[in-house]
């Protein structure tokens, strides 16, 4: 099984799903809550969150109660915006910039 850091072709849908879910939340999300909301298998979820964290798209925070929470970084927010912008431009018949 490939380790998270060796992923060279991540599934765009899963990355976008995680980014979008975190983008919608005002507060950091519990890992288990995010996994349920995005409907991704736990192993894959771990792999992707680790990969995204390595690239600075999301950040892991440990709260006082000891639970790990995930939040979107400014870079992650910008990346999600870029993805949305691309698809929006293509749908409106413009080539991606």
């Amino acid at each position, binding site marked *: 099984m490939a380790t998270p850091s060796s992923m060279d072709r991540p599934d765009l849908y899963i990355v976008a*799903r995680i980014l979008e879910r975190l983008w919608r939340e005002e507060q950091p999300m519990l890992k288990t809550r995010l996994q349920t909301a995005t409907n991704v298998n736990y192993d894959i979820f771990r792999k992707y969150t680790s990969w995204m964290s390595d690239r600075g798209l999301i950040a892991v925070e440990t709260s006082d109660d000891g639970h790990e929470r995930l939040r979107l970084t400014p870079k992650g927010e910008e990346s999600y915006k870029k993805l*949305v912008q691309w698809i929006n431009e293509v749908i409106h018949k413009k080539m991606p910039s």
Partner: protein
Amino acid sequence: MERPNWTRLKGEGGLLAGWPEKANRILIAIVAVALLLGVPILSMTAMSVHVERQVIAIDPESYRAFRICFYGLGEMEYSYSASLYSEAYVLELDTINFYRFSAGNSYEYGMKENMGGGLSSISGAGYIGDKYLVLVNDNNAPLFVDFELHARAFVSLIPTAAILLTAGAAGYALGRHADKEAQLDRTDPVVMARRLVRRKALVAITVLILIPIVMMFAVAAAAPSGTGFGMVADIMGFFLGLLIASVVAFVLQFKLTKEAAPPDQILAKLAYRLRVSGYRVTEKRKRLIVQISNTSAVHITTKKVPGGTWVLYKPSATPNGLSVLIVLAFIFITMPLALALSLFMLYRASAFASMRVLPRISQIPVPEVSAARVETRTMIVESLSEGRRLSAEAYESARSNYHDSVIIMFVLVTVLSFVLGTLAYGIMDVDQRGKIALAVGVFSGVVISAVLWLLLAAKARPQITEFRKWSKKLDAALSREVAGQSPADGEPSSFELIVDSFKEIPKWLKVRRKAGGYREPLIWLLIFFLIYGAIEVGFMGLLWWVEGRSTAGIVAIAVSIVLVLLSVGSNVAYKKRLDLEQERTLSDWRKRYDSLKSEMEKFLVGE
């Protein structure tokens, strides 16, 4: 999170205070029923003229006139027998010529017959406008005429106009009542601006209604006597007026409001707000085209002036609406309905502009979060809205294709059942073979139609259902996005939905391509008129041929063949152009999708 209070979708009810959309549809249904039932009944009762057989005495050098005012289809028959043989005649005159006659001026007549001799009968049917039947006595002695007249109207424009005006007045009164019930704030500038917009539209509608009437009298009065044109001048003027008023209704542009913001900003924000409210908005050359029903649309433009920007609106028809209008105008006798529909579209456009557009122009979204977040949400909404528009159009096209197939099937089955019935009549040699042949025709027609209909429905239903599901799915996602809500756990994200819908686009485009008539009604109508012309001229040619006018017959049949070839050629060229267009679009789409996917993946991995 941006949560504007004007984001409820169309059809949720209580959208804005005042006149609900549903009421319009109910009113139209009531008017349609009133027209279908009321026009023939009123025409046959109130408009018909009956003079039972009687002897009428006419003074020397005098006349007696009977007016038959139908402005519609009807029949007329009268008989007369006069006591004198000379200087006694009957005239058929139109209104203008009747006034000329009664004033002692020169006039033109539609018919003039001497009344002397035995009992004469005259009858005719067709379009009857405003006609005067005049019994004239130019003798120095009294004239006694044994006279009887029966004129029956079947479909008259006068009760039609009365019903439409009553419905219009009732609709206006109900609208006013609804506004009062809604307890509108009369100190609110938007409410007051709305009233002004509606008032301007009502003035325009009133003027447009008067155009045919004014044209009728103007053309009739201006028609030179002695040319033969005078007899039909009033009708020609009236119908010309109807045509002009119908066209002008779509040329008029009305001011909506003046804003301080620049034109591009106003249109961009308005497009966004209308989209999030569930309307289909297309941006085209600095104008917004908003579809408000299957037949009506409204164009919104701007005009830069010192001190701000004027927002203007103009009524427009969708391809479907345009087709209906052209067909109504083409049938000629239904031209009044074309004007009624045009005026209704104008009224709808003004109601939409005042009730839906105006409040959305002045509302400025107040971003409660970072501008970047608002921008992202705006883009998601725009993408979902565009996907919803395309899927809804694909759904409508698929339904339209299915309905076209059903109509063609019915026509073919009708011809087939007629042939089968005729064959049965020819083959059988039994009693009551006519009834048996009729039964064969009807039975075969019903059974074959039912079977083919089921097959067509079974073939079309899965695709229609799929497109409807897509449209609903995107509609729900759009509503959710506008309300700032997240998808339920486990549901696909908006981004996934947009990408998935993007993958469906080739299928949607293909269905739209099949519904060519729906997309480009003018081409469809050109082909329709060519075929119609070919059939008309062909029949005329055959008739002339049978009558022995072989040269004229051959020319007409040759013209008919040329028209058929032109229609087939136009159709083939049109389909080829659509195929090429589709090929180009799909190839472009594939390139864009591949490029997008690779850019996205590169971007993510590169991060």
